[in-house]
């Protein structure tokens, strides 16, 4: 008897996903038992990858994201000879979800990468700390965020992962001799992070209900999502709405 009930629930979820979610939302709860404003448990592990200069693994419910930062030497931009670069890249591969195809980054990955880059360009890392020799050599930090399992809310997990990897990062000590840069990996120094960012995503499901930290099933039904990022002092760093639906002003105020 219990077996057939479980099968019926599974079938209902597949055939009528909207109705399935509505049954829960109309009662003020969600299909995994969370309250609409409740976030999933977040676990962060730093320094998980020994081949990268800074790394972190973040688990947000079932969503698993790994961020690795590699530091390489390059010539700084002519306009800013004292600054290095921070390049962020989000990688969504078929490994994490059947929605993505193998090959060059798809649209969602590129949008996520762009947004993360803009978010972190706004004063998290002092780029002048990445300078080796003014005008000659600087560090470029390539931060790659690889998604291992996709169960909704990649952006939040990616922001947390990048933040943790930057905290974990040890930039090798570098010296320049007659045009050749030699770096010693055993002597690393930490960067000072001027701001710590904390993200929160609120998704408008089915035009009616605003839920926090949507998982994959809810994201599929979502019409819009709002990302709010605050820093350690409670100041707003970023508000971003994505999705084709229109979000009422009241809903935005609720998120903030």
């Amino acid at each position, binding site marked *: 008897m219990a077996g057939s009930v479980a099968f019926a629930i599974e079938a209902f979820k597949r055939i009528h996903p909207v109705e399935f979610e509505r049954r829960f939302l109309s009662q003020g709860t969600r299909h995994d038992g969370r309250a609409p404003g409740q976030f999933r448990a977040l676990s962060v592990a730093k320094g998980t990858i020994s081949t990268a200069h800074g790394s972190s693994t973040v688990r947000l419910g079932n969503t698993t994201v790994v961020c690795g930062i590699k530091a390489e030497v390059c010539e700084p931009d002519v306009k800013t000879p004292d600054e290095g670069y921070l390049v962020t890249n989000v990688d969504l591969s*078929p490994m994490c979800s059947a929605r993505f195809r193998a090959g*060059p980054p798809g649209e969602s990955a590129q949008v996520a990468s762009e947004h993360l880059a803009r978010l972190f360009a706004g004063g998290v890392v002092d780029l002048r700390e990445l300078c080796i020799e003014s005008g000659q050599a600087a560090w470029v930090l390539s931060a*790659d965020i690889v998604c291992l399992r996709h169960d909704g809310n990649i952006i939040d997990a990616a922001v947390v992962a990048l933040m943790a990897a930057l905290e974990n990062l040890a930039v090798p000590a570098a010296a320049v001799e007659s045009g050749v840069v030699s770096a010693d990996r055993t002597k690393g120094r930490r960067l000072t992070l001027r701001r710590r960012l904390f993200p929160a995503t609120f998704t408008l499901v089915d035009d009616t209900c605003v839920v926090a930290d949507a998982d994959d099933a809810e994201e599929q039904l979502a019409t819009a999502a709002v990302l709010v990022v605050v820093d350690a002092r409670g100041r707003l760093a970023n508000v971003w709405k994505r999705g084709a639906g229109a979000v009422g002003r009241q809903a935005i105020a609720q998120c903030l």
Partner: protein
Amino acid sequence: ALSSASAASGTAFYEQGKIRISCAVYGPRQGRRSNARAGSFDCDFRYAPFACSWKRRSHVRGADEKEISLILEHAVAPAIRLEAYPKACIDAFVTVIESDGKAATIAAAINCISAALADAGIEMYDSVAACSMGLAGARWVADCAQPEEDAALCSMLIAYMPGADEITYILQHGKTTPEQTDQAVQTCTDMCARVYAVICRYLQSSLE
């Protein structure tokens, strides 16, 4: 570690020392050729950009990643009962999160795919276990890490099905004598049997 995923048919995360590999298997799903009598198995192998201890890899598929994809296909395909899945295709996506020694990473990838295929419930003759060795001086050393591999004269990779006592893949780089190769094959297949025991234990415990 094995897990039941919501999207992929089967997933596996494999750790061997410092090597960390994640694999997702999709299938059987609709194949590309509608008149094929047996299913096809495709493997897509890639390194994460921060996986190797040397320079960061770009996102464009390198030639070595394509070569390794083919190695994995040839090593694992003989174990799958492809004639049970006509017109279907089974896709495996492998991402190396952290790598330590190229031959050892390929061996670990083969083990990871075997575990993921079992997690997906794909019919197989047997699980494939793989092992790598390097020739340091006159002795064969098992499972070389990156510095050991750089110093080794020769490297050997063997993929083996212990239940059927068949070698599905063998690859040797470097100079050896026939006797040394013979000895390596013997030792490697013994070690593959041990790796196979570990994989089977995990599969059994995940069922409970």
